[in-house]
């Protein structure tokens, strides 16, 4: 097994070097090391792509390498972006002239309320202290409390009231005497039969779906039947969502294959 691993690794390294040389030569010379680095980076990106795809076969050293590199680089990316953009770019210029000068960013103007979040942030960092860790709950409490308060009325409006009011549909659509009574199955159909069927389905679907989610009542009798209809409607929905997403996911794969065949190998134009 070790021998196979060594052979495969050697082949991969050789192919990597060949690709590096070829890609370096495709980048125009500008007297710097840029084409050399650019050739390396494009090759590296392609090999990382193949390394991730190799996961579909089985776990292997290339996938492990790519995965660990990705985790490390992404964690640092978030930290760097957060520190330099938010703290140095936005916070320090609003709380301290000295800090702004030290980091070489222009001081804006003092805003006293911006002193509070770094205090809470430092309180949160007290978590690392064995004795002072209890105070970090204050910062946690602030974050959890504010978001709970934010969510309460907003979700009540968007996920509750607006959903209810959207279901106020006339079950018996007024016969207009024009247009076909029967028509195609789209929601924009002008046929009254389809409009009535649609409205009744939505009405019953919402009602029975809600009944399915009742926790404190046994699902028996009429209640049980309604609940059963509800779960059937839910299953139809889940199947539809699943089917709807398939094409979108395939197109992601097409995108990646395009990178490999066009940008890296140059097989397609």
């Amino acid at each position, binding site marked *: 097994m070790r021998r196979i691993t060594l052979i495969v690794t050697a082949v991969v390294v050789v192919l990597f070097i060949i690709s590096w040389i070829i890609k370096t030569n495709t980048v125009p010379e500008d007297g710097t090391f840029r084409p050399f680095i650019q050739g390396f980076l494009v090759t590296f990106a392609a090999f990382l792509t193949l390394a991730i795809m190799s996961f579909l076969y089985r776990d292997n050293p290339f996938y492990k390498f790519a*995965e660990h590199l990705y985790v490390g680089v992404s964690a640092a990316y978030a930290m760097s972006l957060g520190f330099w953009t938010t703290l140095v770019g936005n916070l320090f210029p609003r709380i301290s002239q000295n800090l702004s000068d030290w980091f070489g960013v222009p001081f804006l103007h003092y805003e006293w309320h911006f002193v509070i979040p770094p205090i809470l942030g430092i309180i949160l960092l007290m978590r690392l202290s064995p004795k002072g860790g209890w105070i970090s709950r204050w910062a946690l409490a602030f974050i959890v409390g504010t978001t709970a308060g934010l969510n309460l009325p907003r979700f009540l409006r968007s996920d509750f009231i607006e959903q209810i009011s959207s279901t106020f549909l006339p079950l018996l659509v007024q016969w207009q005497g024009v247009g076909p009574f029967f028509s195609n199955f789209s929601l924009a159909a002008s046929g009254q039969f389809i409009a009535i069927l649609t409205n009744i389905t939505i009405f019953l679907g919402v009602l029975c779906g809600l009944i399915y989610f009742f926790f404190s009542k046994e699902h028996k009798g009429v209640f049980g039947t309604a609940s059963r209809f509800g779960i059937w409607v839910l299953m139809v929905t889940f199947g539809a*969502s699943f089917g709807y997403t398939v094409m979108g996911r395939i197109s992601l794969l097409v995108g990646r294959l395009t990178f490999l065949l066009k940008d890296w190998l140059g097989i397609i134009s």
Partner: protein
Amino acid sequence: MTAKTILFILVAVLLAPLVMAQEEAVPDSTVGVIPPAPPLNFRAFDTPYDNGHSISLEWELSADDGQGRNNVLGYRVMRAESPDGPFVERGIVTSGGTSYNDSGVKESDSPDYFPRDHDFYYKIVATTADGSEAESEVFGPVRAVGQWFNARKWPVLIAVGLFTAFTLAFITLARRGKDLYVRPLAGIEAVDEAIGRATEMGKPILYVMGLGTAADIATIASFTILSRVAKKVAEYQTSLIVPCYDPIVMTVAQETVKASYYDAGRPDAYDDKDVFFLTNQQFAYVGGVNGIMIRQKPATNFYLGKFYAESLILAETGATTGSIQISGTDEVTQIPFFVVACDYTLIGEELYAASAYLGREPVLLGTLKAQDWGKACVIISIILGVLFAIFGWQDGVDAFRPGN
């Protein structure tokens, strides 16, 4: 008067018509152009239920807008700080329009700043293609003022009040010892079995809390379930792996698991390297969790919290390793993937109910009852609303539409 003077006057009188004719020969652009009728009943008022940086204007159409001479192109909204001007154009409304909101931002250093508590005077000017205009009367002074309560949101306020009342009432009833029935949930009943299976196989349990922050309600619900799972894990002496996406979630998860181990009487068994931060980039996190699943082969995987497109990758990878998978999320778009790929799925609200099921504490069961009453109110409201819609009572339908 000399003869020369008389002669001069005579020549001037004879030549004057010629000069005047020449002056009149210069084309006068206003000759033959009749200005349009002015807009009527113009009024300006403070925009209601706003932050105090907007004034609303309403008027009636000019008699030549869409009728009469039908030559009105639009209306210019003019504003000044005194009734005599100078007036500055604030906006243009095309013909047929009868209202305008003059607004701006609240930051005083912004070029788009709209001052609050400041008197303004407005007029509306109807314009035509040939440049003729007609002005309304000047209206003012009017000032923008911020309101302290948005009365358009009263349906939400009523809903908050009702729901809080239900919750407190049922909590009180539950505390008095009233027995509250809850129907069985397959996903919850499987938790003990799943933990037992991991113990028998000597394999760890993987608990993934998703991509939410500590402030997401789904994540808070997941913490509660984690505390129950961790307590059982501590009692059975199985190992637990909790890779975290958000550092604050990691902090809270560490507190939660440590407390559960303490409650189970095994504080020494807790290792904070079991609850760790991985990364906060979506697919890097998935890659890392996949690696854990493939290499450490947990017997049971829990996916409880907020998930997005990565949900299927996690669930499918877990399925290939033969783990029992229990999932729950409030992301409606991801529920189908969990339903297809996992053994048990808590759909939407069931995730929030899980903590009550696992702990069976009266207070939590009481809030579950309140949620059911909330659903009952919804059903009644929908039936009422549909009846309103059938019989054409639009006011009843509109009562449920909260404004912004």
